[in-house]
């Protein structure tokens, strides 16, 4: 099959035939994946799934000290298992063989924004829980916008690969390249964080090829949806809630979610809990895992809810708890604000003060932004210092980095 499998960062096109050849040649399968380029990362994932060998995935930018802290020795890092060469005749064989290895396991690490990264172990089912596989999806072309070593990226990868779709790498690229790749390769599906999507604006272009947009990893932003629909008028937009511990858990058409299966999700005291069996980690003898994600109900029957933030991100300002996500949201409510970041800066006078960075489409002053916030937030939630900037740094998972 001469269909393109992957368009790499440097523009090289690798076909499914080439992939099949590489897999049939494979005699040694890595147990630890520590690769830089997307093709090699995916190849090691596929080979391990194909041969049913557990794979541990490391971020390409982990330092040796970080890897040591994860208790992975130099020796383990390069350990490979000898396997029997395969004779896969076609891509359908390959996909069927992978899907038959449901017990295959993948170990990966949380982004590690706080302290030592946590290890999570997942079976194939975690990645295929929301898999849509049918003839309807055979012509999908995926813009690959997540880190390939993180759970969201691996989920998108399986969605695309198990449908034998073309995958176009657009992770960590600049706006011009991303937009030109969408056109050049006729990308139909995008899955990324709101921060990633915001980076694509402003643009006057309209892209008709995009049919489906999935947003996840950060709080959903209705204003962003409106902007996305202007640029991608043929797209259906959906919002997912996922975690490193359990993969995708909930899916919705907009900002509001509801629990479709009460056996694996529940809300208590405005916190979301998920059933311990869904987790890829050992957490001891408890039935429900506290995700730390805070929600609020939006209807009287307490069925629909939206995410409002995370408990460990709350900033203590003189004894009051400020939710950075709520404040970023309020800043983004201003028509000229494209993106905002709010964080707490330690300070000898008061402990912590709230700071903000904002990217604007039209010139705005700190004063104007403050006046805008006054109508929306309590006084203690208004950042004391607001910087107007051109760039806001993001984490390796493509979320806003709050420092």
């Amino acid at each position, binding site marked *: 099959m001469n269909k393109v499998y992957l368009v790499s960062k440097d523009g090289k096109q690798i076909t499914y035939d080439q992939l099949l050849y590489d897999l049939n040649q494979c005699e040694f399968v890595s147990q630890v994946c520590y690769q830089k380029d997307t093709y090699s990362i995916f190849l090691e994932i596929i080979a391990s799934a194909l041969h049913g060998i557990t794979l541990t995935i490391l971020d390409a930018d982990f330092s040796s000290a970080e890897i040591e802290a994860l208790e992975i020795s130099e020796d383990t890092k390069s350990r490979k298992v000898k396997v029997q060469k395969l004779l896969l005749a076609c891509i359908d064989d390959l996909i069927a063989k992978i899907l038959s290895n449901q017990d295959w396991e993948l170990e990966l690490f949380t982004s590690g924004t706080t302290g030592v990264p946590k290890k999570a172990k997942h079976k194939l089912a975690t990645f295929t829980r929301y898999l849509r596989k049918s003839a309807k999806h055979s012509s999908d072309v995926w813009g690959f916008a997540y880190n390939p070593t993180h759970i969201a990226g691996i989920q998108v990868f399986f969605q695309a690969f198990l449908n034998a779709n073309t995958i176009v790498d657009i992770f960590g690229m600049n706006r011009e390249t991303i937009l030109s790749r969408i056109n050049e390769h006729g990308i139909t599906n995008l899955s990324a964080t709101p921060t990633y999507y915001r980076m694509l604006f402003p643009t006057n272009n309209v892209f008709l090829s995009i049919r489906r947009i999935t947003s996840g990893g950060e709080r959903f932003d209705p204003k962003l949806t409106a902007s996305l629909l202007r640029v991608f008028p043929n797209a259906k937009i959906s919002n997912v809630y996922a975690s490193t511990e359990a993969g995708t858990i909930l899916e919705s058409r907009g900002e509001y979610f509801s629990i479709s299966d009460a056996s694996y999700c529940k809300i208590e005291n405005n916190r979301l809990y998920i059933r311990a069996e869904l987790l890829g980690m050992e957490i001891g003898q408890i039935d429900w895992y506290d995700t730390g994600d805070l929600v609020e109900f939006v209807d009287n029957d307490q069925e629909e809810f939206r995410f409002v933030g995370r408990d460990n991100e709350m900033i203590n300002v*003189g004894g009051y708890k400020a939710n950075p996500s709520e404040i970023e949201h309020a800043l983004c409510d201003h028509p000229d604000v494209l993106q905002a970041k709010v964080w707490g800066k330690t*300070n*000898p*006078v*008061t402990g912590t*003060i709230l700071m903000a960075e904002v990217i604007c489409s039209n010139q705005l002053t700190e*004063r104007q932004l*403050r006046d805008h916030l006054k109508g929306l937030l309590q006084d203690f939630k208004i950042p*004391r*210092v607001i910087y107007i900037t051109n760039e806001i740094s993001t984490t390796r998972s493509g979320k806003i980095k709050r420092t």
Partner: protein
Amino acid sequence: MLDTLKKIVNTVRENKGIDPLDAITPENDLRTDLGFDSLDLAELTVRIEKETGVDVFADSFVITIGEILAKISK
């Protein structure tokens, strides 16, 4: 330097909705003369640090404009 400091002081004053001052002097007390509470002082330190690179509250509490001037001109 007094001018830079006046500008910063007035930004903080305007942010809290009080009128800017025409002049400040080294004798001015940050709390009683300029009307700053602790959050205003925190904001003031961040803005001074941005302009001058000096964290004026880092090692001791400052009370007057003069004490700030002494620290940032070191």
